[in-house]
């Protein structure tokens, strides 16, 4: 799992070895927000470039980046996608830093450092059908792999997405869900909301029960969402015959350094910023239940 390099992608960049990152691991490069997409009332996607319009770093799907607003603070976020000259982070307004970020406008300068973490096991996923399960903002890290698969469509089998949010308004990445992804060959989209509402003629119900209803055949599965979704989806998948090594999730912990030194993001002897954030259910079984 640690080495998730894929032939079509450059090797994982070891934090600090990237030419764009200062040799002192903890010092960010100066960047700017070039575009802001309003996903929901409390979630926005920020496109970030360096001052000379380059990609701040080249993240693998599932890797993390540390974003800072001058004078406010730093926060670790999953990189939900990358473009030629930018990276994207989808951020929910939950605290001090994220609140200030939501007030920021395009052109706002930021500090950015990364990439951190292991990322998704691309080699393992290659050539296989993949089921993506997301709940709420949990689609953000999962999307980084979906976008990778779409960019390298021939390298992967059927892509199936099961995604749910509390309401229609809480669905993130609507542009992808309803406009872009339906055009991708051999890709199935299943979107649900928790409760029926006017103007929604799609599926209604929680993600775990939707998964049981759809009865996907056992395959590599990448899931991320609120703890309650994970809690009820995992046993459902196991019951349907999904192997623990094929159930992949991504975790979050409080982080300060991102490079395995500040100490706080450990689960047992593993640091989420270095050894994670991506783990299979099989690997999680080896770790203490403290996350």
């Amino acid at each position, binding site marked *: 799992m640690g080495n998730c390099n894929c032939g079509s992608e450059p090797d994982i960049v070891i934090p600090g070895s990237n030419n764009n990152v200062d040799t002192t691991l903890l*010092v960010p490069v100066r960047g700017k927000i070039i575009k802001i997409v309003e996903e929901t009332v409390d979630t926005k996607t920020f496109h970030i470039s360096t001052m000379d319009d380059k990609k701040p770093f080249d993240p693998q799907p599932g890797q993390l980046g540390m974003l800072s607003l001058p*004078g406010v603070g730093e926060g670790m976020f999953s990189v939900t996608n990358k473009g030629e000259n930018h990276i994207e982070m989808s951020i929910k307004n939950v605290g001090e830093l*994220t609140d200030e970020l939501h007030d920021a406008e395009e052109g*706002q300068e930021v500090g950015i450092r990364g990439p951190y973490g292991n990322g998704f096991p691309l080699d393992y996923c290659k050539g296989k059908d993949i089921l993506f399960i997301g709940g709420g903002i949990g689609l953000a890290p999962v999307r980084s792999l979906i976008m990778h698969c779409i960019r390298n469509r021939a390298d992967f089998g059927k892509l199936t997405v099961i995604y749910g949010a509390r309401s229609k308004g809480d669905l993130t990445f609507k542009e992808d869900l309803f406009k872009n992804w339906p055009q991708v060959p051999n890709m199935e989209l299943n979107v649900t909301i928790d409760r029926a509402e006017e103007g929604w003629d799609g599926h209604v119900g929680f993600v775990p029960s939707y998964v049981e209803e759809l009865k996907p055949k056992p395959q590599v599965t990448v899931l991320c969402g609120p703890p309650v979704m994970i809690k009820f989806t995992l046993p459902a998948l196991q019951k349907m015959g999904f192997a623990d090594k094929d159930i992949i999730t991504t975790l979050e912990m*409080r982080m300060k350094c991102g*490079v*395995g030194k500040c*100490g706080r993001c450990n689960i047992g*002897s593993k640091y989420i910023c270095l050894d994670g954030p991506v783990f299979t259910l099989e690997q999680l079984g080896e770790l203490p239940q*403290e996350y």
Partner: protein
Amino acid sequence: MLVIQKTKIKEILDTLAKEYKVIVPAKDGDTSKFIPYGDNTEMLLEENVQLPPKDVFFPQTEKMYKFKSKKNTMEIENLPIEGGKQLIFGIRSCDMKSLDCLDQVFLTKGTDEFYKEKRDKTALIALSCTKPKETCFCTSMGLDPQKAVGADVQAYDLGDKIGFEAITEQGKKIIASIEGQLSEESVVVPKFGEFKINVDVEGVPEKLKGMFESPMWDDISRKCLNCGACTYVCPTCHCFDISQEVRGEDGVKYRCWDSCMFGEYTQMAGGHNPRPTKKERVRNRFMHKLNYFVERYNMLLCTGCGRCINVCPVNMDITAIIKQVKEAE
């Protein structure tokens, strides 16, 4: 062995001070710690000091970079590196071992330049121990109180004299610079005294792996106040927070010591805390020292200096916990 009378030790420190900023163990108000050597320094060579030398390499608060922000712009400016060569005289085996532990954290899997800069410019003259304190247990952690790991020079406490033995190339240069003030004598290094605390850590890291859910942790953590004093005096505790100080347009990003004993340490913005009570925090601290660090770096994150035992207001004792693990079924 090259030796000097203890009463004349200041003479060689004065010589070394011409080339290095010399740092020595000394009394400092109500406490004792490593401080820059000066004319009025009250050196403490009879026993180890109360605070470890980790702040020489990893300051309690350390500025990382400056930034300037106007409206929506931000400029980042690296800070100049301060100071030249320095030398610690009189660092003990336990604290030398702690540098080995800190090196694993800060110099492997990505180099922490702030730490490396200080580590690289600091020469180390270790001093042997002859009389263990009440709370010392370095031998139980596999250390030799008279032979420090990683020292440039090993000095020996010979009673009224101090003997010197160069270990590294840099150590040879240090000895060469003070050789004229030393005299060659044949000496016998006195055996160190008896340790009051002896504990067998053999097999404990492996056994702890299966004891995460043990009810023992409820019991152990009950009296802990989560005051964090143990982490503050620990030579190997290295957790840090990153924050900033802002005045108008100017800001400084700094890091400062943090403690796994504090609830905010793992508190996430959304409200979730994976280690919400003192049980999880205490368990994490001891698991880190005795199991997680061993799994990661193949060494214990405890050097037996005994400072945490000495400072704990409720008499928490890591050696008692090791015994408890050992005896658990």
